C-alpha cells in the first residue's frame, strides 16, 4: 500500500539483479497491465468520438441550428414578399377596375370611395393575416380624406390591420384590430379599434414611403424592401415592415402596401431552442463592419440567455465559430447572409447565438469531469491491483509459514513440490559415490586408523581452516613437534603435501564423511 512510484521504478530496475518480494513483483505486473488496458480503452474511445470536446459539440449544434434558422427565415420572408406582391397587384386592380370606372381620377376627398375600397381590401388583409407568418398587414393610398385638414399633405388614407392574439403558431381564429382606417370598416367586420387608432397614416413617420414613389416601374419584385426596425407609433412594440409599391398599368404609383412582423411576433415565431449550453437564439440583423446591429434587427425567443434586443454585439471571428461580445454578456455563434432586401445599403444576416458563459462553463465542467473521472479510475485500478495481488499472495505466504513449522502448506501444488524435494533429499542421502572414489575414500580411511590422537587433532584443526603456525598454541606443543607430527601424518596417510591433505579433507567434507576421520 505504501509503495511509492519511486519504489516501483527502483523495483523495476533492480528486479533482475536482486530478489524481490513476490507481492511487489505481482503488484507491478497487475498495475502495468491495468494501466495499459486503461490507456487502450481511452485511445479507442477517443477515436470513436466518445470524448469529443465541448467546442466540437457546440459547433455541431450551432451549424445545425444555423441551417434551420436560415431556411426558416428565408422561407418566412420570401413567403411574405410573395403575398405582398399579390396584395399590391390586387390593390391596383381594385383601384383600376372599381374606382376609376366611376370617373374618379383621384381618391382625394372621397371618403365614401375610400370606405368602399377599404371594405373590399379588408378581406385581402384578413386572408394574409390568417395564412401568413406575420402579425400585421396594411395598404396606404396616395390620397387623403380631407385635403383641407391640417397636415393633409402628410396624411394618407389606408387600412392597417393587426393581430391581437399573436402566438408562436398561425392562429386558426385570429383576432384583428384596426390600427389605421375607417371605423365603419371595423364595425362591419365586428373588430375593435386599436388603442392607438387613427383614421389615416402619417407618412412622414412611415419608413421609406416617399422612396416607393421613385419606383423604376420594372419588375415589382425589384421594388420590395424591408424596413429597419422601428417603433409602432404610440405603442410599446417594435416592428419591421415590408414595403411594396402599388403600381398601375401605366406605371403610376397608387400607394404602398405590405406586412408587419413585430418583435414580439418574431420572438414567439422563432423560440429559443434548448441545448446543453443554454438557449439558442435566432437573430436577424444587419452587420456593419464588425458589429452585429441587434438593435436594428429582430431577436427570437431568448429563454435561457441574457441577450438584450437593443444591444449591438461586436463580432470576433474564430476558427470554429464566432464570438459576439456585448456589454455584459457574450455569445458564440454563426451567421449567414440572407437574400432579403433591406432599406438602405445594409445586408441582413441570419444569426444563431449561444450564451458563451454556459458554453465555457460546460467546457470547464467537462474538463473537470474528465480529470476527476480519470484520476478516480486510475486510483481505483491501483487499489484493485493491490487488492488482487494481496489476495493472490496471502495463501502462498501462509503456506510457506506452514512449511516452516513442518505442517501441510494447504496448497496442493506446493505440498506436491515439497514432497518431491524431500524425496529427492532422501535419495540424495542414499546415493553411492562412484566406485574408484569409494575405493579411494576406503583406503584413505584405513590409513587414517594408524594416526595417533594428537595427529588426528592436528588434522581436525586443518579441517577447520587453521594454519600450521596456529597449531603449536592450540595443542600446547612446539612448532618442531608439529612439523614432526606433520611428517608422520603425511607418511601414514601417504600424501605428499599439505595441499593434498587438505584436498582429501575437502572431499570428505563434501561427501558428508568428515566426522569419520576423527
Amino acid at each position, binding site marked *: 500500500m505504501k509503495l511509492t512510484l519511486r519504489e516501483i521504478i527502483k523495483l523495476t530496475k533492480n528486479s533482475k539483479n536482486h530478489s524481490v518480494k513476490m507481492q511487489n513483483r505481482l503488484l507491478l505486473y497487475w498495475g502495468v497491465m491495468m494501466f495499459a488496458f486503461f490507456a487502450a480503452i481511452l485511445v479507442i474511445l477517443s477515436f470513436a468520438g466518445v470524448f469529443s470536446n465541448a467546442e466540437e459539440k457546440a459547433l455541431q449544434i450551432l451549424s445545425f441550428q444555423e441551417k434551420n434558422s436560415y431556411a426558416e427565415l428565408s422561407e418566412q420572408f420570401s413567403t411574405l414578399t410573395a403575398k405582398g406582391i399579390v396584395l399590391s397587384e390586387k390593390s391596383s386592380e381594385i383601384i383600376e377596375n372599381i374606382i376609376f370606372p366611376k370617373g374618379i381620377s383621384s381618391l382625394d376627398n372621397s371618403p365614401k370611395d375610400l370606405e368602399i375600397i377599404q371594405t373590399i381590401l379588408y378581406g385581402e388583409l384578413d386572408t394574409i393575416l390568417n395564412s401568413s407568418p406575420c402579425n400585421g398587414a396594411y395598404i396606404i393610398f396616395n390620397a387623403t380624406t380631407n385635403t383641407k385638414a391640417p397636415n393633409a399633405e402628410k396624411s394618407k388614407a389606408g387600412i392597417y390591420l393587426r393581430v391581437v392574439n399573436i402566438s408562436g403558431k398561425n392562429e386558426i381564429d385570429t383576432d384583428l384590430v384596426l390600427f389605421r382606417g375607417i371605423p365603419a370598416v371595423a364595425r362591419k367586420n365586428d373588430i*375593435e379599434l386599436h388603442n392607438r387608432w387613427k383614421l*389615416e397614416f402619417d407618412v412622414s413617420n412611415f419608413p421609406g414611403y416617399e422612396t416607393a414613389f421613385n419606383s423604376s416601374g420594372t419588375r415589382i419584385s425589384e421594388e420590395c424592401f424591408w424596413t429597419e426596425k422601428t417603433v409602432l407609433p404610440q405603442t410599446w412594440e417594435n416592428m419591421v415592415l415590408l414595403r411594396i409599391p402599388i403600381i398601375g398599368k401605366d406605371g403610376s404609383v397608387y400607394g404602398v402596401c405590405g406586412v408587419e412582423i413585430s418583435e414580439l411576433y418574431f420572438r414567439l415565431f422563432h423560440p429559443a431552442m434548448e441545448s446543453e449550453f443554454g438557449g439558442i437564439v435566432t437573430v436577424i440583423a444587419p452587420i456593419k463592419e464588425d458589429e452585429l446591429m441587434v438593435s436594428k434587427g429582430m431577436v427570437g425567443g431568448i429563454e435561457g440567455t441574457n441577450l438584450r434586443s437593443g444591444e449591438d454585439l461586436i463580432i470576433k471571428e474564430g476558427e470554429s465559430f464566432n464570438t459576439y461580445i456585448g456589454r455584459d454578456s457574450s455569445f458564440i455563434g454563426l451567421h449567414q447572409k440572407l437574400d432579403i432586401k433591406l432599406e438602405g445599403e445594409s445586408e441582413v444576416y441570419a444569426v444563431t447565438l449561444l450564451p458563451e458563459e454556459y458554453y465555457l462553463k460546460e467546457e470547464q465542467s467537462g474538463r473537470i469531469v474528465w480529470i476527476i473521472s480519470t484520476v478516480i479510475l486510475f486510483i481505483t485500478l491501483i487499489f484493485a491491483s493491490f487488492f488482487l495481488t494481496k489476495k493472490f499472495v496471502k495463501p502462498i505466504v501462509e503456506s510457506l509459514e506452514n512449511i516452516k513449522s513442518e505442517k501441510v502448506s494447504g496448497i496442493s501444488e506446493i505440498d506436491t513440490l515439497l514432497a518431491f524435494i524431500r524425496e529427492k533429499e532422501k535419495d540424495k542421502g542414499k546415493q553411492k559415490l562412484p566406485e574408484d572414489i569409494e575405493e579411494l575414500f576406503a583406503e584413505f580411511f584405513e590409513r587414517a586408523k594408524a594416526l595417533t590422537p594428537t595427529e588426528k587433532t592436528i588434522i581436525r584443526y586443518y579441517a577447520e581452516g587453521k594454519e600450521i603456525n596456529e597449531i603449536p598454541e592450540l595443542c600446547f606443543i612446539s612448532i618442531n613437534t608439529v612439523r614432526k607430527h606433520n611428517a608422520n601424518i603425511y607418511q601414514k596417510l601417504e600424501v605428499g603435501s599439505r595441499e593434498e591433505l587438505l584436498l582429501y579433507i575437502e572431499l570428505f567434507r563434501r561427501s558428508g564423511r568428515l566426522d569419520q576421520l576423527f
Partner: protein
Amino acid sequence: MKKFVLILAAICLVFSACGTKEKEKQPVTISIWHVYGAQTDSPLNDLIGEFNETVGKEKGIRVEVTMVSNNKNIHKDILAASNNEPGAPEFPDIFVAYPSTVMAMADENILVDYRDCFSEEEIEKFIPSFVEDGEVEGRLVCLPVAKSTELLFVNKTAFDRFSESTGAKIEDLYTWEGLYETAAAYAEWTDLQTPETQNDGKTLFVHDFHFNYFQVGTESLGGDFFENEKIAFDETFENVWKPYAKACLSGGVWLYGGYATEPLRTGESIVSVASSASVLYFSDEVIYPDNTSEKIEMIVRPVPVFENGTNLVMQRGAGMCTVKSTPEREAAAVEFLKWLVSPEINTRFTVSTGYMPVTEEAFSDYLPKAIENLTEPMYVELYKAYIETQEKYDFYSAPKFDAYLEIETTFEDEIRRYLYNGRNEFIEGEKTPELLEEAIKENYILFKDFM
C-alpha cells in the same frame, strides 16, 4: 478499504453537486400575458424591464411579456388552452384573469394556490377583500396586484358645446336618470345638426359593461340581481331597465361592441362609464371622420347612481394566476409577483395604470404621496374621483358561481343586440313617446324571455 470507498463516494457527491449548481445558474425565463397597457405603451412592461435588470438579474429570472391584450382576449385564449383546442396557444407562466375565467377552465387545479407560496404574514398584508376576490373554491388562485373600479369619463370639450346649446349640465350626468335623459336629448340635438340627414344623431353615452350597470343598479335599489344563480328579473330590475332602454332606443347609448374608449376617440360618444384603468387608453385627441382632430379636456367623476338608490360601485381588477410547471419556474413567477406587490413598486405600477394598490402599507404610506406627485391632468382627475368614490361609495363584488361568466357574456352581447335592433325598428316607424314606451316594454319582455 472502507476509507477508500468513502472518499470515492464523497468525491462523486461533490462532483455531482457542482454539476447541478451549474445548471441552476442558467436564467429561468417565464412568460406573462397581461392587460396593463394593451396595445399602448405599457407601464408594466417598463416595470418588468426594471425587474429583469435588478432582482431578476441577481436571481437568474427573466420575465418575458408574450401578450399584452385585454381581459376578453386573454380569457378566450386561456379557455382555448385549457380545453386543449386545436391551434390553441400554450399557457404562459403567469396570466391575468378574473376568478370567473378560472372557474370556466377545464381544470382550475393547474393553477398555483398562492397560500402555498406566500406566508400567512405576507397574505395578511393584502387588503382582505381583495384576497377574497381572488379565491376560487377556497384556493387563492388570482393574486390581487391592482384593483380598479368604474368611473364616469366625460369629454368636457364636446359636452360644453352641447351644454351651451341646450343648457344641459355636467351634474345631470351624476344620476342614471339624469344621464339617460341627457343621452336622449343629445341624440336628438345632434340629429338636428344635420337636418338634411334623418336619424344620424350621435350617442352621448357608452358603458363598458352593461351587465355591471344592471347588477350594481339593481342591488343599489335594494333588489336582488341574482336568484338561484340566475338573473331575478324582478321589479327592481325593470326599474333599472326603463331609463336605460329609453335612452338606448332614442339613440343616446352606444350599442356596438368593444370598449368605451373607442367611440370616445372617434367622437361618436362623449360620455362613458368604464374601468378606472381605461385612463391609459383614453386619448386627449378626438379624430373625426373628415380627418380633422380636436384636443379635448377629459374630466373624471364617480360613477352615476340612482336617485333613490345607495352609492354602490363595482369592485374591479383581475388577478394574476400562475400556471403550475416546474418548481424553478413557479418559484421564479412567485418571486416576480412578490416584487410586484411590494408597496413601493405596487404603488408605482398601479398609479401609472389607473389602478389602486393592493396592500395596506401601499395604501397608507405610498399612495397619498404618489397622488400628490401626479402631473398629467387626466390622472389627477382620475385619482380625485377615485378618492371621492372611496369616501362616498360602497364597493360591490360580483358573486362567484360556475355559470356567472356564461350569464355575463350572453347578457352583454344580447342586450346590445336586442336594443340595437329595437332602435332600428323604432326609427323606422313614427317616433312617438307612446311607441317608445311600447318598445321599452316589448324589448324587456323579449330580452327577459331570451335570458
